[in-house]
């Protein structure tokens, strides 16, 4: 199966458990298992190729310009990890089906699990390091969801957050490191980077890249000093702990160190950093684990310790160390996952994980006892079990390693760590299973059904098989080691054997096991000593750091972001002007290439009117109605300016938009105060005027200078002018650009317009449903109302004008392709015609005669435009390719039919719908309950016989 499928399967499969949740727990787990199994089988189909020593590749270009392509690679190392992820994943899924209770949402759990599985497989199969980073972050996110799966538990939420913060920040560091590495090697493909050992290690940026990448690895793999998140992540359901926190995710950091081994390892920096971190983690984890009473916490710290062991082995930088590391990953994955599942079984059956409340389970849970004991003995390093073999190799490697010029340091610490490791394994067996049967368990423990114990049992079979017959695992481990070494070193010849003779490693092993037994015998005094000893609490330190970071950001953000809009606006303006000023003073200005055009008296008069209107607006803005009139004049002068400077389309658009904007603002002003009170101090107004003048001068200078210069490059307008008629079939180039050349932009714009209108509608609805409604209903108008709200003159006039305006709109629309006009302008004109009916005859009268809701008009417009665009697909052209032809229907003259016209119809409809929906929403606010809604178009109709109504004055309310 293609690697792309193997990675994609869990992601797509993640959709299924959620869908299958309603179908029952078995179906939900079954479908998850099937997805995983399919990926697992897909992986196995690649086994022969991998065994032959070849590398399977798959590639899809994603963003080649960024060096980011979807490249996957499968070699021995990738295969090994993918096998662990998918294989143990299958066991975990089977186990989780029985572990989760009926209250747990199983579909959600399995969705997260498959997401995690896909991300994890992606990490180990990525050839491109940028892609690897994407998957890496995905594992952090999905593990966050899994750890916090029991949302009701505060420990779960805190543990999830801590894990995300630690691994996420590590991931950020790693992104930087990977980018540096990619820059050094000149490629983001692992297969290229791995060939460039000498180049990378000679680079001055090698050390920063190494440290940043190791930060990512250490946080992910819970290495000291980042080990503290892992025990807190144990608040997760046990299947998650077994899967993520022993077998897979915490090995991602180890995987990456192994993957990068050929380029990064072997330098003194590598040896010192990695070996030290590993050694400290190993010893620390083992010591803490011994004194933990929670079974899962014990296992968590033991995992920390074993991860440290593997890290230390990789850190030594020798081929033998790498081989031992790979072997121990395999062994640890088997016995630790089995132990976690056993812990889950005990928790599930005895309802407690506290070792102090357990004991004597040997008789009550014989099957679990057998599984857990074998796994624990393997972890302790007892011969004939697989843990012994890799631990021997580790001790051997430690014996050969010298750190800080102290030959005894590494062997002594390794033995010390192994001693504690053996001690906690013995404690696990002794304090949980051995001893007398108690009568105070929270629940009566018994062996679970086979669905729960079979998965760990399968793993224990592996533990024993490898332990007894190490030659079974040897070829595979050597294959994996070969791909770790990547040709930089030779795979060691040493065979995996149970008996090596009387070598130092054996003595160290014996010391560790004997010491472990002794430690268990002295456990109670040792525990008292441990409890009395002061030690830093990692969680407290972590929270103090988070709190300090939050305080810092608060101190930085809150003074700047203090809720004063005017302040942001002023700061923004000053910053932009300052940036422009900097560019102005540092750049060079070419000589003017255009001569100024002369200005006639009419032009100057127009300019003077515009300036007067703006000045008046600024000076008299406190009278809001007057301000509205003045801004209308400004808009009008701008429209006239557009006419003058050869832009008839713009002038028509500006003019019509001006009308609807003023109506809109009038509607709003109906509710707002009529005057703006004087609030700001003189000083403040002077400051604002200063900012405003600076901004105005800056735009003036910029505009003036570029108006006198030709464009630096020939604008693409020439293309549009040349091709408008030939290619677009229209002589109004502006319209052809809108509906043809840049039709896709226009399509986006009418959608934005429609969304804006819907937003206004939604806001109105929210207002009318909330407490504002009562206030609106009881509002007393601050101005006297007119005696005739719907005056006869206006009704008659707008009725007469309506067909004329519609005709004009139709004409403007139809001619738009060749003469000034088009859908935008026609839409605005028609909107004005309809708005006039609202103004004349009132809201209720008009909406009662409204046949199509405006939402539908917007939708039909966008649909028409979209379908026109799609239509070109049927003739094999890209989206929105237009076509046109000329037809002649007697008695008319020959005229043109273009598909662009249909698109323009969509624009027209969208504009009408959007403008009308906005204005209608505003006027809905003005309706009042105690105003009777007139069913007539006007208040006084000479043709209507008015019977004396019981409440004749009600229409004149407020007069």
């Amino acid at each position, binding site marked *: 199966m293609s690697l792309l499928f193997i990675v994609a399967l869990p992601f797509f499969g993640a959709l299924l458990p959620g869908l299958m949740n309603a179908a029952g727990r078995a179906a939900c787990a079954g479908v998850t298992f099937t997805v995983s199994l399919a990926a697992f089988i897909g992986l196995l189909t690649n086994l022969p190729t991998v065994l032959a020593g070849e590398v399977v590749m798959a590639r899809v270009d994603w963003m080649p310009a960024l060096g980011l392509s979807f490249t996957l690679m499968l070699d021995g190392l990738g295969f090994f990890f993918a096998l662990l992820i998918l294989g143990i994943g299958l066991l975990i899924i089977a186990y989780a089906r029985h572990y989760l209770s009926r209250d747990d949402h199983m579909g959600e759990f399995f969705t997260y699990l498959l997401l995690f599985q896909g991300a994890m497989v992606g990490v180990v199969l990525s050839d491109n390091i940028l892609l690897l980073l994407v998957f890496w972050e995905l594992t952090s996110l999905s593990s966050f969801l899994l750890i916090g799966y029991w949302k009701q538990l505060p420990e779960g939420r805190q543990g999830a957050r801590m894990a995300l913060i630690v691994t996420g920040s590590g991931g950020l560091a790693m992104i930087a490191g990977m980018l540096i590495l990619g820059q050094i090697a000149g490629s983001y493909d692992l297969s290229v980077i791995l060939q460039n050992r000498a180049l990378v290690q000679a680079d001055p940026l090698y050390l920063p890249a190494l440290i940043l990448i190791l930060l990512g690895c250490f946080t992910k793999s819970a290495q000291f000093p980042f080990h503290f998140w892992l025990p807190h992540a144990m608040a997760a359901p046990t299947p998650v702990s077994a899967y993520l926190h022993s077998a897979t995710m915490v090995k991602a950091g180890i995987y990456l160190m192994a993957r990068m081994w050929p380029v990064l390892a072997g330098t003194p920096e590598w040896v010192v950093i990695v070996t030290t971190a590993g050694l400290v983690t190993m010893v620390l984890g083992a010591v803490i684990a011994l004194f933990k009473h929670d079974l899962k916490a014990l296992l968590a710290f033991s995992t920390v310790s074993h991860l440290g062991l593997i890290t230390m082995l990789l850190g030594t930088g020798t081929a033998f160390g790498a081989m031992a590391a790979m072997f121990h990953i395999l062994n640890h994955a088997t016995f630790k996952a089995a132990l976690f599942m056993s812990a889950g079984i005990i928790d599930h059956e005895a309802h407690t994980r506290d070792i102090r409340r357990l004991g004597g389970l040997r008789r009550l849970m014989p099957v679990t006892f057998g599984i857990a004991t074998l796994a624990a003995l393997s972890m302790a390093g007892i011969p004939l079990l697989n843990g012994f073999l890799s631990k021997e190799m580790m001790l051997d490697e430690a014996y050969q390693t010298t750190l800080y010029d102290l030959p005894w340091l590494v062997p002594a610490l390794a033995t010390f760590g192994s001693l504690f490791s053996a001690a906690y394994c013995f404690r696990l067996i002794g304090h949980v299973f051995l001893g007398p049967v108690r009568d105070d368990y929270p629940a009566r423990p018994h062996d679970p059904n086979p669905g729960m114990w079979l998965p760990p049992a399968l793993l224990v079979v592996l533990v024993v098989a490898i332990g007894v017959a190490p030659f079974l695992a040897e070829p595979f481990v050597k294959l994996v080691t070969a791909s770790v070494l990547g040709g930089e070193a030779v795979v060691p010849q040493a065979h995996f054997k149970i008996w090596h003779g009387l070598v130092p490693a054996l003595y160290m092993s014996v010391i560790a096991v004997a010491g472990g037994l002794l430690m268990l015998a002295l456990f109670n005094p040792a525990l008292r000593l441990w409890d009395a000893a002061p030690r830093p609490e990692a969680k407290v330190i972590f929270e103090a750091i988070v*709190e300090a970071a939050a305080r810092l950001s*608060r101190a930085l953000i*809150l003074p700047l972001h203090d809720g004063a809009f005017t302040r942001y606006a002023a700061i923004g303006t000053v910053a932009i002007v300052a940036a422009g000023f900097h560019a102005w003073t540092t750049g060079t200005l070419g000589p003017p290439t255009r001569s100024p055009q002369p200005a006639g008296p009419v032009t100057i008069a127009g300019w003077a009117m515009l300036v007067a209107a*703006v000045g008046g607006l600024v000076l008299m803005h406190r009278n809001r109605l007057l301000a509205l009139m003045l801004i209308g004049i400004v808009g009008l002068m701008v429209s006239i300016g557009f006419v003058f400077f050869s832009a*008839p389309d713009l002038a028509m658009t500006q003019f019509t938009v001006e009308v609807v904007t003023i109506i809109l603002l009038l509607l709003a002003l109906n509710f707002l105060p009529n005057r703006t009170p004087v609030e700001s101090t003189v000083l403040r107004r002077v400051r604002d005027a200063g900012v405003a003048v600076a901004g*105005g001068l800056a735009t003036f200078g910029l505009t003036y200078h570029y108006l006198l210069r030709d464009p630096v490059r020939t604008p693409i307008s020439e293309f549009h002018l040349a091709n408008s008629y030939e290619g677009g079939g229209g002589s109004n180039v502006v319209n052809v650009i809108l509906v043809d050349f840049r039709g896709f932009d226009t399509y986006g714009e009418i959608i934005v*317009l429609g969304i804006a209108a819907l937003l206004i509608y939604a806001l109105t609805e929210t207002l009318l449903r909330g407490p504002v409604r009562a206030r609106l209903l009881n509002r007393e108008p601050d101005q006297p109302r007119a005696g005739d709200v719907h005056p006869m003159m206006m009704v008659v006039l707008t009725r007469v004008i309506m067909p004329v305006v519609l005709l004009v709109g139709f004409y403007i629309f139809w001619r738009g392709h060749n003469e000034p006009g088009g859908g935008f302008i026609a839409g605005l004109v028609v909107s004005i015609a309809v708005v006039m009916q609202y103004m004349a005859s009132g809201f209720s009268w008009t909406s009662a005669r409204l046949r199509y809701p405006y939402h539908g008009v917007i939708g039909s417009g966008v649909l028409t435009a979209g379908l026109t665009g799609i239509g070109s697909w049927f003739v094999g052209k890209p989206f929105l390719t237009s076509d046109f032809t000329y037809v002649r229907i007697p008695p008319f003259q020959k005229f043109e039919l273009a598909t662009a016209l249909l698109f323009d119809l969509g624009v027209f409809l969208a504009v009408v719908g959007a403008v009308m929906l*906005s204005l209608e929403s505003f006027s809905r606010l003005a309706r009042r309950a105690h105003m009777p809604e007139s069913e007539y178009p006007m208040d006084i109709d000479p043709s209507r016989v008015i019977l004396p109504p019981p409440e004749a004055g009600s229409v004149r309310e407020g007069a």
Partner: protein
Amino acid sequence: MELLVASAIGILTAGGIYLMLRLRTFPVILGISLLTYAVNVFLFASGRLTVGAAPILRDDVSGYADPLPQALVLTAIVISFGMTAVVVMIGLGAFLGSEDDHVDDPKGPVDDLAGGGS
């Protein structure tokens, strides 16, 4: 002519900025509208000023106005109407909800970071 257009844009901008820095919603909206005019004219002027030559193709004409800025500004005008309407609606909703049309939040920002510990 160039001087007139450039100064008109400058004056529109200055007026817009000044009104935008006022304390109530209505003048701020007017200020944003003025800025919209300024920006639209500015964009339009980037096609340089042409008098008496519309971008309508004719057989006997050789010089045309630059059509591209015109097309861009045309949609910008319509969109700016939509945006003005949204801003007015938000301002109106805020006023109706609180009987207060100040743009600055007197209480200062809500400190969301305070609840980080649990």
